[in-house]
Structures are given as C-alpha cells and as structure tokens.
C-alpha cells in the first residue's frame, strides 16, 4: 500500500445485491453503488460495478490503489454442495472418520435427525500406508510407491482437488509433505490441501473436516479469483486485489487461493469489522454487534475494538440452529451467534397453547402477510406493523407498501383467537417473545465468556435490528443502544477498514510447568515468521506490523481452553507468573473460582500478525437531511409494559441535534430501518451521526452538554 495512493474500492457480494464503496482516501469522501449480483458468475457484477462506480465518480481505473473483496463464495459452495470433486488421502484404517464425525446426536428428542453428508464420498478416500505417533515419531514409513499406484487411477482428470490428512501430522508433518510432493508429481493439475499447513492441531475429525472443506472449494475459488484478477487487469487496474478473511483481517489473492476455507465468514466479517471500528463520541470499549435481518439475527461481542474470535466454527448445519449438526472448521473467525429470529420468522400457537416465534421463516417469498405477496401466516414484521412500529407507507424507504389489514387478519386467525387475546396484545406477545429469544441467546453467549452486559453498548443494524434493540438491551441491563448512520453499507465499508492480517495456530500439548522456555519461544518465533512472510509477500513493511502471541490453556484433563495473551511476546519465568494470573482470573470469571489444586496445561499456541489499520472516521455521517415527512408527525404506538397505545412522535435522524436528548417514546424512521425508543428511554445524536439511546434514563429532561454519567463526549 503506497503512501500516495488515493482511491480504494470495497466490494461486498450478497445473495441479492452487490454493494460497492469507492473511497477517496485523501478527502475522506466516498460514493456508494448497488447492483444486482450476477449469481452465475459473481465476478461479472464485481467488474461491472467497479467500472460503473469509477465512471460515475470520474475516477480513472489507473488511480485505483487496491480493491478489497468480501465474498460468500466459500460459504455458498459448501452450503449448496457445489464444490469440486475432491479426493482424500488419509492414514490407512481411518478413511471413515470424516463420515463418523463425533458420533453424537444433536437433537436428543428427535429419532429422525439427518446428519450432513461428508464432502468426499467413500470411493474417493484413499488409505495411505503410514503412521506417526503422538510424539511425532514415525512408526510406519510412508509407502511412496504404493501411493503412486493408488494415485494413478485419478489421472483421468475427474478429481480436481486432493486433501491430505494423516494422524498426528500436527506433531510431525513429514509424511504429509512427502505425500504432497508425490501428488504434485502424479497429478500436476490438481489443487492440494495439507492438514498440517491448514491447522496443525490435534483432533483428527476437526482437522480432517477443515482440510477437506479447503480442498472442496479450492478449485472453485481459484477459478473465480483468476477471472476476477484477469478482468481487473483487462480494465487497466494496476492495484492489488485483497480478500476479506473470516477473522476480519484481509489477505492477498495468493493466501486466499491457498486457504480458501478461511474465507467462509468473509461477508459477515466485513460488517463486524465496521462495527468494531465504529466511531462514536463515548468511545465505548465494549460493544455487542446486533444485526437482525429477514430470517436470522446475528450477534458478535467486540472488546477494545477487537471482535471475539474463535478457531471452532461450525458451518452448513443440517439443522440450522442446532449445534452439532454441521461441519466443524478450525479456522480463525469472528465468533458470531445466529438466532432463528428475523422479520420473516413465523408466529404460531403450539399444542401446549403457547406462542412460538421462529425459527421457521417465510423468507422473502411469499414473505410476511403484510407484504401482500401471497403470504397468509403471521410473522414478526406483521406484529411490528400492527404495533405501529413500522410505517406502512415508508417501508424500505417507500419501495414496498405494507397492508395492515392483512397483518391483522393473519395475527387474529393464528394467534389472537387461539389464545383469547386482542390482535394488538397478540402482536405484542410476538414482539416480546422474539426479543426474549435474542436476549437469552445474547445473555448465555456473554455469560459463557465471563462478560458483564452492563459494561456493553448494543450496536444495532440490519433492517429489523433497531426495532428490537431497546427491548433486548433492557432485558440484559445493557445501558446504551447505538444505531450507526451507515447501516446500509456497513459490510462494504468495513472492507476498507481491515488491516492485512494472518493468524496461525499450532498444537503444543505440554503441562505449563514443564514447558521449555527456549523451545516455546522458538516455536512462537517460527510461527510468527511464517505469518509475517504472508504479509511481507503482500507488501507490508515489517516495521508496520503488530504481532500478538497467545496460549490456549486449560486445567490438565479439560477439553475446553481459555486463550491467554503473552503481553511482551516472550515466554520466561516472569511471563509465566502473569500468564497463570491471567488464566486464573479468566477462569474464575466463567466458573466462579480458579482451581489451584490442578495443573495448568498448554494446549496450543497462536500468533496473529497484522499490518497498519486504516482510518474509519470517513464512514460516519455528520450532515443528514430529512427525506420525507416532517418533524410534527405522530402515530399511535403500543409499547411493552403499557396498557394501551400512546401517541408517539415520528422523527428522522436529521431532527435530532448533537447534545440534545429527546424523551421517549420516539420512533425514528429511516429508509433502511426504524428505531423504536421506549417511554422510559431517551435518544440523542452524537457528533458522528450515531443515534444513541439511553435505556431507562428517560426522565423528562432536555439536558445539554456535560453529562456526568452517560455520553460524556457530548460536551465536545
């Protein structure tokens, strides 16, 4: 990234639309462009969109420094099972592990559960004579000649990718490397994925699953990136193409080709990155991103600008909201929880006479009853309309008009009558249950990580997020809700805020007390060198890199680990004391108390190397203009905890002034979303254009300036 570079582009491909942002890094001005995604070959819409946005902005393509791309290609390829024909080389005797999984049922009460098909069929799993022991000794040498013979039948060109995963390869990768060379000689045209390169960690099923998934998408991603790169060159672009990784870092095209599985959460990671880099007056250290759309809600915890990350992802679930029904991927990823509650979630009364909301959803067709597109069953959106939260004439900025009568009759028929409630009470019940489900999922997620909700601010976006945010926050005692101004382009914008970054993980199974400091420091340094090389190859100067080391620790015998950072990237006696303290503190936050009678065990080491972080202030919106209606608009709105509807002002973001609070109840209408502020809350605007809602602080006041206990920075 050269210092004088001026224009950069972020491209986010969604299922329906491709969003493009062109940023002038010198002035901080940006332009947004939206076009339909060309589903057959998404690279077409990327190239077309870039040409169009440059043309309309009057910028030459040669002035483009780089393009950052967030793609759902890896995710879609795996979820829709449209990957390459891949073969698997595996230690002889263990060909079926990929199919046997962990042998556990994911739904205790369902005799009819379905389990995901493995990505490689039995016929393409090749048993390789070799065996490593857990300490890295070779017990059986790899039979190279036999392997060559086994590979020859694959030379017919049908197999496009090969995954190699041998037992204990994390402890000694020699056999995998030898097999890789043999495959490259015998099958020169296929892509090869090697387990110890992808995730050198003990746990054969998870490593197999990750390696196989990588092989499965590698040819598809390779072709796609080649077309994209060629296309950009054809347009005259001399800048680099970068890809968003699942953990919010970006990578070069070469890294993406080698480890395409790491792009699984590329799309969502961009939106979370934008949230993590959100500029707001209070400079909150602790955020919960809350993105609620048509079918699901997603949440992600962000501490000190860093989203929580995980190396344990589960994707492509046979049963969408049941953990254990999908494929495990050991890749670095932002950690998100997905809940089956969205605007399209169906409401129904079950055999217990209880109201259930979701996880079944109507999707966009036929959609909620109020869309008038043939849907007859009541949804969350229908409830929102009945409660007065949504404006039937200004949904999606007026692009879709909503039919209140249809919403009412659907709720009356399927919810109100069976429960003996009025339509409005039934709608309120649907809303309350949806909020309750999201709050519960959020509460458990925070609690399991030892986080206190009272220290967090909830950042709401997505079409349905800000409608529910205040009630969700109230249930969790989260004191503040922030609704950023650029909700519609959070993902594309986030692409332009990510640093080049690369994470590595390696098994290091040793009791902490027995760790040889020199050996551990060498291992860390070696891993860091590998990660740095990835960034050096991408043109990042080593002086501009930040390096983080951390250890995954547990008590001896436990399976679940806690990540503890090494503050000075050095392991010695002094560091050990700090590590033990940190571990015990983090452990006690989750489990109540540390257990000093047990030995601490180091499970794995982790390294993350990142390049310089780009500015993010440009995405804020300081000047806002009103697009419809006027500030005197009011409508009847029914709130939780109120006996009847109350007359409520309907404002636009432009009606709010920094430093002033409006007493709830308030509805704030915008083209992408509607924010609902309860009677006990109050809402203000900060200097970056964010809506800031203080939960339960709605004492009638027009406080200006210095708040001692709230949004301090309003005094700016």
């Amino acid at each position: 990234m050269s210092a004088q570079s001026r224009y950069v582009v972020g491209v986010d491909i969604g299922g329906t639309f491709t969003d493009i942002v062109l940023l002038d890094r010198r002035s901080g001005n940006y332009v947004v462009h939206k076009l339909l995604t060309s589903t057959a070959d998404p690279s077409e819409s990327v190239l077309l969109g870039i040409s169009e946005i440059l043309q309309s902005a009057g910028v030459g393509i040669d002035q483009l420094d780089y393009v950052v791309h967030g793609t759902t290609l890896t995710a879609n390829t795996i979820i829709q099972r449209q990957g390459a024909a891949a073969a698997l080389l595996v230690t002889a005797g263990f060909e079926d592990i990929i199919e046997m999984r962990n042998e556990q049922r994911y739904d205790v009460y369902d005799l009819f559960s379905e389990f995901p098909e493995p990505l490689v069929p039995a016929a393409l799993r090749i048993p390789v004579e070799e065996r490593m022991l857990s300490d890295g000794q070779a017990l059986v040498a790899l039979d190279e000649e036999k392997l060559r013979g086994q590979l020859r039948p694959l030379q017919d060109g049908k197999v496009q990718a090969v995954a190699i995963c041998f037992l204990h390869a994390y402890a000694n990768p020699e056999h995998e490397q030898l097999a890789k060379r043999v495959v490259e000689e015998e099958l020169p045209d296929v892509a090869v994925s090697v387990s110890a390169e992808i995730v050198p960690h003990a746990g054969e099923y998870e490593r197999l699953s990750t390696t196989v998934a990588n092989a499965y998408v590698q040819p598809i991603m390779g072709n796609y990136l080649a077309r994209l790169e060629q296309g950009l060159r054809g347009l005259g672009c001399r800048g680099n193409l970068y890809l968003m990784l699942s953990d919010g870092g970006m990578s070069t095209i070469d890294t993406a080709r080698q480890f395409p599985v790491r792009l699984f959460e590329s799309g969502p990671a961009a939106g979370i990155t934008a949230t993590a880099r959100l500029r707001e007056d209070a400079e909150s250290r602790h955020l919960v991103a809350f993105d609620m759309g048509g079918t699901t809600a997603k949440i992600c915890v962000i501490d000190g600008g860093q989203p929580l990350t995980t190396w344990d992802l589960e994707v492509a679930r046979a049963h969408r909201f049941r953990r254990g029904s999908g494929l495990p991927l050991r890749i670095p990823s932002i950690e998100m929880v997905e809940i089956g509650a969205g605007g399209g979630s169906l409401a129904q009364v079950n055999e217990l006479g209880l109201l259930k909301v979701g996880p079944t959803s109507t999707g966009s067709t036929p959609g909620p009853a109020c869309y008038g597109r043939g849907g007859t069953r009541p949804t969350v959106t229908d409830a929102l309309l009945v409660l007065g939260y949504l404006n039937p004439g200004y949904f999606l900025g007026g692009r879709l008009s909503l039919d209140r009568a249809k919403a009412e009759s659907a709720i009356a028929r399927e919810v109100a009558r069976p429960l003996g409630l009025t339509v409005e009470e039934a709608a309120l019940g649907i809303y309350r249950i949806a909020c309750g489900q999201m709050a519960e999922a959020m509460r458990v997620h925070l609690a399991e990580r030892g986080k206190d909700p009272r220290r967090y601010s909830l950042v709401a976006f997505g079409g349905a997020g800000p409608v529910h945010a205040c009630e969700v926050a109230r249930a969790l005692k989260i004191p503040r809700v922030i609704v950023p101004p650029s909700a519609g382009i959070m993902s594309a914008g986030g692409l332009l805020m990510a640093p080049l970054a690369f994470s590595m993980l390696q098994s290091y199974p040793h009791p902490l007390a027995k760790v040889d400091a020199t050996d551990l420091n060498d291992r860390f340094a070696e891993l860091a060198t590998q990660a740095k090389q990835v960034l050096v190859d991408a043109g990042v100067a080593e002086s501009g890199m930040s390096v983080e080391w951390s250890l995954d620790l547990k008590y001896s015998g436990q399976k679940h680990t806690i990540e503890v950072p090494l503050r000075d990237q050095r392991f010695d006696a002094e560091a050990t004391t700090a590590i033990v303290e940190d571990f015990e503190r983090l452990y006690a936050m989750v489990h109540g108390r540390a257990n000093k009678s047990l030995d601490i065990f180091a499970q794995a080491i982790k390294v993350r190397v990142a390049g310089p972080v780009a500015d993010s202030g440009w995405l804020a919106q300081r000047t806002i203009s009103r697009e419809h209606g006027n500030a005197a608009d009011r409508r009847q709105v029914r709130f939780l905890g109120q006996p009847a509807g109350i007359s409520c002002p309907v404002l636009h973001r432009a009606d709010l002034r920094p430093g002033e609070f409006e007493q709830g109840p308030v509805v704030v209408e915008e083209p992408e979303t509607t924010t609902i502020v309860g009677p006990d809350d109050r809402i203000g605007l900060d200097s970056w254009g964010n809506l800031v809602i203080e939960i339960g602080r709605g004492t009638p006041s027009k406080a200006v300036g210095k708040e001692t206990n709230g949004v301090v920075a309003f005094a700016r």
Partner: protein
Amino acid sequence: MVLSRSPVDDVTLEVLWNKLVSICDEAAAALYRASVSVIVGEVFDFSVAITNTDGDAIAFPTKSMPLFNGSVSLTTREILRRFPLESMREDDTFICNDPWIASGHLSDVFLASPIFSRGQVVGLAVSIAHVTDIGGSLKRIGTTEVYEEGLRIPPCRLINGGQDNADVIDFIRYNVRVPDMVLNDFYAQIGAHKVIERRIRELLEEAEAEDLQSLSDAILERSEAAMRSAIRALPTGTYEAEALTDGFLDPLLIKVGVSTTEDGDLFVDYTGSSPESRQGAINSPYACTYSETVSTIHTVLLPQVPANAGCFRPIRVIAPEGSVFNARPPAAVNIRTRAVFLADPVVMAALAHVVPDKVMAAPGQAGGYQLHGSYEGKPFLTFFMQSGGMGATAKGAGASCVFFPGTMSTGSLEVIEQHGPVLIRGKRILRDSGGDGRFRGGCGQEVVVTLRPEYEGAVTVSMHPHMLEFPASGLFGGKPGEVGKILLNGERIDKYRLHTLGGAVVLHPGGELIIKTPGGGGFAPPEKEHDRKEKSAVKRAKPA
C-alpha cells in the same frame, strides 16, 4: 413482566420457560468445560436440572441425557424427605450415589443444592455426572453384589454452608483410584449449581416474583395436559412386544405391555421379564427403569415439548420386584444399561402397533470400554466409547455410528493417544452391518486397539459389549443388524469367555483387540420382498 401467584399468561410462560432451559444450557456448559474427565468433558455423560421445592424437575438442558430425566425428580424428592427445606442453608450441597435412590449405579453421582432467593429456598439445582472412578472391581460387569462395585454414598451433605464436609470428602478420597479427578468434577457440578442459583435470582427479580411456584405449576400442568392429549390420541388398548436379548451368560427375556386409557394414562408393564441376574451386574433398580422408560415414551409421543416432570406424570411404569427391571439390594447394578437400554427398542416395538411412523427399529448398541493401566509413572484410566448404527424408521435409513439411546460423543483418537499407551490401528464403518429393509439400519464400526510398541506395561480393558449374541431387531419385516464381535489376539471373545473373564481383558504390547459394534435394525421388508407383498406390507406385518 409480573409473575405473581396468579396463573402465568401464555406469553410470559413462553418467555420464562425458554429462559429456564437456557439457564440449564448455560449450567451444562459450565459443568463440562470445568470437568477434567473424558467421560464428562468429551463424552458428555452428565445432566443438570432445576426442580421446584417439591423436587419435581421443571427444566433440563437442550442436550440432557434422557436416562436421567425421569429419576432426577425421584432422587430429589428423597433428598427433600431426609433433609426438609427448613433444614437447608445457603451454599449447602447434598450428595448421593445409592443406585436405589439416585441413577441406578454407583458411578452416576447425584448432587443437589438449594436455590436461595431472598432468604428462602425457591427450588433446587441438581446434577448427575458419571465419575471416572468410584472404586470397586475393575471387572465392571463381572460383579454379583453392589458391594463389589465401589463406594456407596447415602444422601448426606457434601458441602455444609459453603464449607467442604471434610469427613465425607475424605471417605471418597480414600476409596477411589483418581481422587483429584473425581473431586474436581464434583466442584464442576457445584459450579453449575451456582450458575443456576444466580440466574434464578435474576429471573425472579425481573419477574417481580417471590418464588417459582406459579411458573412451575404452569410448566408441569401444561406438559402433563399435552402428554395426556398425546396419549388420548392413541386408540385405547394394550400393545405388547417381547424380545430375547443379551444378558450376562443367560439371555434376558424382555416383555413389555403398553396400555392406554381414555383418561390419558399410559402404563408400561415389564411383568414376565427375566428375574434379576446373579451372573453379573446387569440389573436395574426401579428408578432407573422408570427413568429410561418415561424418556422413551416422551421421545416418541411428545418430542417437541422440553422434558420436565409434568411430561412424565401420566406414565406409570410397572416392574415386579425381584425382576431385572426392579432389582433389590444388594444386586449388582453397574451395567444396568444392559437391561434398560436393551428394553428401549422393545418399548418402541410395542408402541409401533399404534404409532408406526413415530418409532425406530432397534439401534445397534455397543456398550462401553474402560481402559486402566499406568503410563509414564501415573495411573491411566479413561473411557473409550464407540457407537453402533441407528435403527431405521418409516422416514428413512438409520444413521451409521451414532450413540443411542445415550447422547454420548466419541473422543479424539489423537488425544487418547497423547495421554496413554494406546495405539489405535483402525476405525472403520462396517458397511454391511445395518439390517436390510426398505429402509436399512445404520452401520456399526470396527476399531482396532493396540499398544505403543515400546510400552512395557499392560492395559486392562473392562468392557460390557451389548448385542454380542442377539442383534438389533428390525421393525415391520425389516432385517436385524449384525451382532457385535470382540476379538482378542485373534480369539473370539464370546459370552462364555467374557463371563469367565468378568468382562475384563488384559492387552499386552504386540497384542490386538478388535471391537466390532452392532448395526441397527431395518424398517419394513427389503424392496424385493416388499414388491411381492405390495403396499399393505407395513399394515400387516407385526413388529418384530
């Protein structure tokens, strides 16, 4: 959200019920994450529950071990009988593993702690976890009296107002092989109880309620009503099934009669089944028989309602005293799953007469393995579990290699090899082991166990393989699955040999233990046969 003494409204009930289940999920996660044993941390052989002040369970985690769901209430009631609410103090924890009070064998240790809110007990937080060791014989199935099976702990205080009851803890410490591991897992259970107490206090505060009474009443009454209506939807009558299954040497005869009444009562009667065995530890105390039976009925008739004591109220389980399903002290009960897990498909076969599309053919049940030895100067003791194939259903083939009716998970082979001398030389699906049928049974697996070549010791493998003799039956003309097989150094370990060995074999370096787990039963006749019999096959065929 006001939760007074008056009945809870529908919406509040839904919100709070979800919350109770999610509290149990959070507590379950706290338990397995803090556990230092394979059997809890990786295999998930545990459960937690919230009970009301009568001892009735009102919520379990989403992934509760069904075997425990029914007995939790019985055990908690007995604890309350001996230690009335008024005698309980904050931060008390009670312990019991008596098979006739708790979960049927000594290894499942039951803990209960009162949930205090504003100075009064509003319910109990309870948990059951399988301990890695409870002392006693390593020949786990080869015992003939409970006294050989380890330490039997009567209901007593483990923690007294926050202070460890040192006498009880020392008794345990002196009687088990890996005391640190065992005691740590107790503390993991208590940590889970603390999570429940904290969250229940928050719930009551938010709901502006004094106690859980009206919420508990609503959950139990709704669930009971739903179960009754599910039972009333069945034609009244008696539906029978029987099967000869593996015992320990002599086979077990399992006879089941399921009767339904117009009032929505359902009786499961085991009368006519084998008497309790003197040959080995395959007997079930009544509470354990009850627990597995009501869970099976719940899974078949009302799977969409989260388990709680209300779901079980309409169900009565009858097992004559002295039978294998109602064994009397001091019968050996260590592997009581032999009786109750193998009874599970017989109960389903009886229900198949009336709900053929809601049941499953018999699953191939593998039993369990415990490895014991020493490694690098330390005792080495771990569980090693493999599954068989699921039974087929009216909707499709059975899945291969899935635990049933337990909800266990298999651990990582690489991790097992890191911590002991075991060297696994193969783990494969046995492709033709599922029973044939219109829908095939799931397949079992073959695992080859050896020891590291340089290892100089020996490893005792204590095993209780089910289905070595009698296979998992099919339903409606579906074929049975393959039986399980055990080979030690090439020699077939049949039931006679296993009996002689008391279920424990010794594996030496250079030796090889091959475990083949059974396949599941098929559903309906295989296609060829089916074509001849036309479409009426399902209706006419009798459950096997």
